[in-house]
């Protein structure tokens, strides 16, 4: 099993109790908003908690249609992430890239990867060690907003930084 795989396996120990070498556990516990994982994220009042990162720092940047470049508001969020990651140097990060549903499946996977990588490159350019960052794309498979309108699509075109203090 790769180190990457082990990481998720370890996560699942916390959430689900029990983990075998072939654990068939859903990849990412953060994909479901308001999921049951929230209570393991610490207290939002603790600046070193995952909850604080998600709620106060901001865990996601949004993208324009078909684009993977990061706009000013995205940069502001990523800069805040840089500050937080520098203070909380035990944390690692997986950046999940996503696309809206208005595209073909394979292309959207590739587009989500581009977005995740844009965020990664920005963080690295501001001094976060690349060994602390992994990326993955879910393409259009995991929307957070479900309507078929631009106000939902704009929330789905995202790169989400999922932090964890566990090793990859």
């Amino acid at each position: 099993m790769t180190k990457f795989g082990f990481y998720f396996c370890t996560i699942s120990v916390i959430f689900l109790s029990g983990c075998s070498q072939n654990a068939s556990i859903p990849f990412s516990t953060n994909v479901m908003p308001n999921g049951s994982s929230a209570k393991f994220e610490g207290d939002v009042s603790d600046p070193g908690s995952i909850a604080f990162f998600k709620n106060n720092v901001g865990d996601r940047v949004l993208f324009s249609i078909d684009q993977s470049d990061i706009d000013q508001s995205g940069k502001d969020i990523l800069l805040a992430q840089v500050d937080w990651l520098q203070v909380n140097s035990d944390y690692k990060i997986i950046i999940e890239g996503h696309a809206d549903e208005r595209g073909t499946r394979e292309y959207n996977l590739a587009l989500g990867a581009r977005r995740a990588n844009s965020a990664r490159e920005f963080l690295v350019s501001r001094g976060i060690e690349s060994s602390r960052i992994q990326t993955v794309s879910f393409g259009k498979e995991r929307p957070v907003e479900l309507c078929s309108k631009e106000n939902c699509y704009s929330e789905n075109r995202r790169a989400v930084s999922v932090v964890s203090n566990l090793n990859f």
Partner: protein
Amino acid sequence: MIQLTNANWNNQAENEELVLKPFLVIIFISLTTFVQSAPLRIVITEGVIEPLPYAAPEFIGETGASNELAIKITELVKSDILGTGLFREVPKSSYISGINNFSSPIQYSDWKAINVQALLTGSVLVTGEKLSVKFRLFDVFSNNELGKGLQFNSTKQGWRRIAHKVADEVYSRITGEQGYFDSRIVYVAETGKKGSRKKRLAIMDFDGANSKYLTDGSYMVLAPRFSPTGERVLYTSYETGTPQIYVIEVSTGKRTVLKNRKGTMSFAPRFSPDGQSVVYSLEQGGNTDIYVINLRNNSRARLTSAPSIETAPSFSPDGSKIIFESDRSGTQQLYVMSSLGGSAKRISSGGGRYGTPVWSPRGDRIAFTKQSRGRFHIGVMRVDGSKERLLTASFLDEGPTWSPNGRVIMFTRETQGESGVSALYSVDVSGRNLKKVTTRDGGSDPSWSPLGK
């Protein structure tokens, strides 16, 4: 217009081929003279086709124990034949004479009088677990049998395949083309809400029967693809957290991963026509290109090298070329290159975006997904990009797969909104006969197997 060229069918050769196949034994039934110049024929063209009137009286159950399967088999054969949209059934209520004995001579005039052009008769014999089905096809207006009577032997459990094989023979004798009924679909079965959809690898007969899951749904899978012989399936899985390509043997469920280098993502695999190689997309550092891996020695080669997205590769049937999509021009378009890589030629030229190209089994067409003015279409074009035709239009159609004979395209259609669901649809390459495919759950990413052996 697609004009059929191989109009002179040679049923004898086909029958001999079937005899060699392990699952079924074919026996020629001694019968009337076989007339080579049979006029009964549907030539499949792009134009409007007047469905051919046919009758298929219930197959004769040769024993009491055979009656139940005789009814089921007749219904399934008819369902296959009618499902093509090329035939019209003359109802039983208009029959002048019935078929009470499979061996009795046909009263052609009785069938002509009700304008039946093709008459299918059959008989079914169940002996213990064994099943034997005979059929004959008649060209009513020329007073002749069309081809020779055939007998298929199998077990009772194999009745659906036998029925599909009878229907394939009927289709083949009347259109001059191979059928597609004895075939399977591998696809992604979808359950659950849109934001947290469970996606499982599933396989079923082309008509939705005998559906079974190949993965348990604890991780997401995407876009399965049959091997050229239908024994293996490629798919992309999130099992380890990052997309990787797997090969699964359909009969045993044995799986092999085509392992990624760390920090990369691989997806969009398809077999080469010889089944020895897999062409796929690999993403590294945000850039997606096309690679090929030889499954025998695991050697890999990079086929494209550009900062743009290159994905959805598909081999030509002769293995010499690969068609793929790329956004190197700014939007997704279709390109053809040698299967060894090198320079690529853009073939799509209409307005809009083009993705998920798939080479037709005959090698003369490309099926694709097109996005234009907020709508998604399944379309076909010639290999040089000419003669583009859109077959469908909806909120979201994507991911075409060809029937083994290249006459039908199956694809994914997703409806919009929070309650949007995904389903499989099929449409003739002529654009006619659009219909939903029966699946147990929601479905996406179909891949059509070759015709059964």
